[in-house]
């Protein structure tokens, strides 16, 4: 790797070092300069007395324009360096800013959590693995692991399955836009709103009363007794997962749909000419073509299922055997103020996603660029 350039340059080591320094500098340049300029501007902006609308407008142009400009400036600077240096610096013009921001906002906090996970509630005394022992032995935690598995399997399966089905069907319908918009609608609702919606579905009133929950209205219409849905183990988990599927199918559909548009019509036509049935075309032409997209969508929904929190916390608070990992994490951290346990559970979440990452990495290797 350290093969010095023959010719005009003095020493390999020196130029390598310079390149390394250059790389770091470029990665830092965009974010730091962007930051300083923006920061200086907003010190003014924050205390400004101008009308709210104008401040907002100026702030938006300032922020967005600033970032775009700084990308351009870095690129300009890199291109003023000798060609072989520029080549090595180029990639960092593109990935550098993202890496710096991610390091600051997510990577370092994760490392901090890793550190805190070995300490007690107030992060004062070292407790070794005690918090991890809690995470893997507490009965509520064990319940959470099982439930999260259910969320991953049913939630991801449901959302991706329905998303794929709807995307495929809508692609063949003249009313594509209408159908897709309606399926997408739940995504637009804030979680507070979604919570109210599902109250109107699962609400329970004693037998003989007017039911305000749709499900119980149907059940009583057919002569059965109304059910307190959230107390029915283990089905209550499924009732909660339905909410996730309802919310996330729109996401899966939108991404899969975009990928479907990229399937070359020539291949499909060729299949038709060969006399393949529609199902066969879907199975052996379309699905393989969009496989990488399906993996992407599944990965993100698996991660959403793993992090699921709002639905459980507001609907059942984890009662009746519906506890999940992220809700345990939240409770330990912000309700019980046990930073050690809260951090340990967060780290467990990160570890739990490793198999998914490993599979992604394998696919990534198959897709090398140039």
């Amino acid at each position, binding site marked *: 790797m350290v093969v010095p350039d023959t010719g005009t340059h003095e020493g390999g080591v020196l130029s390598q070092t310079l390149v390394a320094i250059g790389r770091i500098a470029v990665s830092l340049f965009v974010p730091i300069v962007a930051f300083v300029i923006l920061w200086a*501007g*907003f010190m003014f*902006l924050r205390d400004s007395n101008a009308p709210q*609308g104008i401040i*907002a407008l100026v702030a938006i142009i300032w922020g*967005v324009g600033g970032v775009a400009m700084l990308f351009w400036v870095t*690129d300009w600077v890199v291109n003023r360096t000798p060609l072989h240096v520029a080549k090595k610096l*180029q*990639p*960092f*013009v*593109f990935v550098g*800013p993202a890496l710096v*921001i*991610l390091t*600051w*906002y*997510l990577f*370092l*906090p994760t490392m*901090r*959590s890793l550190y805190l996970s070995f300490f007690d509630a107030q992060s004062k005394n070292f407790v070794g693995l005690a918090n991890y022992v809690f995470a893997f032995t507490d009965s509520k935690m064990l319940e959470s692991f099982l439930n999260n598995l259910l969320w991953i399997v049913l939630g991801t399966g449901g959302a991706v399955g329905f998303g794929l089905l*709807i995307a495929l069907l809508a692609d*063949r*319908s003249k009313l594509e836009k209408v*159908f897709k*918009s*309606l399926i997408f*609608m*739940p995504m*637009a*609702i*804030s979680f*507070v709103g979604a919570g109210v919606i599902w109250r*109107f579905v699962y609400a329970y009133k004693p037998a003989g009363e007017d039911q*305000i929950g*749709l499900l119980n*209205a149907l059940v009583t219409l057919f002569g059965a007794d109304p059910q307190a849905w959230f107390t029915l183990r283990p089905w209550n988990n499924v009732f909660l997962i339905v909410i996730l599927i*309802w919310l996330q199918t729109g996401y899966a559909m*939108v991404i899969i*749909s*975009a990928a479907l*548009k*990229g*399937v070359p*019509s*020539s291949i*499909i036509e060729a299949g038709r000419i060969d006399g393949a049935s529609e199902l066969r075309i879907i199975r052996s032409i379309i699905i393989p073509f969009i496989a*990488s*997209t399906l993996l992407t969508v599944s990965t993100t929904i698996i991660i959403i299922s793993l992090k699921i929190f709002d639905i459980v916390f507001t609907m059942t608070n984890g009662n009746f055997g519906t506890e999940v990992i992220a809700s345990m*994490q939240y409770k330990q*951290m912000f309700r019980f103020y046990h930073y050690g346990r809260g*951090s340990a559970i967060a780290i467990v*979440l*990160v570890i739990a996603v490793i198999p998914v990452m490993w599979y*992604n990495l394998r696919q*990534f290797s198959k*897709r090398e*660029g*140039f």
Partner: protein
Amino acid sequence: MTRVKSKKSNWSLVVNLILLVLVIVWSIPIIGLFISSIRPQDNVLSTGWWTIFGEHSELSLDNYRQVLGGSQYTFVDSAGNTVRASGDNLSRAFINSFTVTIPSVIIPILIASAAAFGFAWMIFPGRKFFFTTVVALLVVPLQIALIPILRDYQSLGLTGSYLGIWLAHTGFGLPLGIYLLYNYISTIPRDVFESAFLDGARPMVVFNRLVLPLSVPAIASLAIFQFLWVWNDLLVALVFLGGTSDVAVLTQRLANMVGSRGQDWHLLTAGAFVAMIVPLAVFFGLQRYFVQGLMAGSVKG
């Protein structure tokens, strides 16, 4: 686009029927919410929303009136008189939400698309490691980042500034953005770039002229998700921007609308619809980009 749609008519009937059933199932909860939002409070709490088609057909715009105009309060002023007054209306909150949301969507998309391009089409040491780490960060609960980031913001003087919250949303939104855009950009056929590079174009030019235009469908999808996430976010805004009435965003105002003890949750039915208008407008505005499938046309054409 029209390739399959003109096929056999009974096939398309089946397709439309299945879709219709699914769409009805998906829409029922929202229809219920909408009907509840135009019913009087006592009816909402005592009878099912479907009874509006039967014995309880009263309609009322009171919920909307309260949400948009601010709820009515009774309090005693310093002179000892009992006063009824309205709370603030939502226009300030709308502007605040826009100010927070627009850059919080555009900035991460700019940075994520550049990074996705770098990861997909450039060779550099540590590429796989960095990429895997980026995707693994998707799973990190953002709650663990709040305290350390707030500390940094305190020392930098960023707390309570729009820049602070834009950067926070950028940081929290980047993993998904990079991952989604990588998936898309890495599938752009290689020959598209090769001719450009042979012409001696710089990567930044290739990125601007080829990658960004070709990625419009993926960017449009990502823009919607990031928009929804930021628009509906409550926690990040409360931590980094604060919740006083001059900076409060729409979700904060709506969350507080249920009253201190949650007694006014019928107002949420109307509030949820008010908050939904903007995201839906954005969806319809961007929809044509990912429905048309620009990619298919420009690359394969």
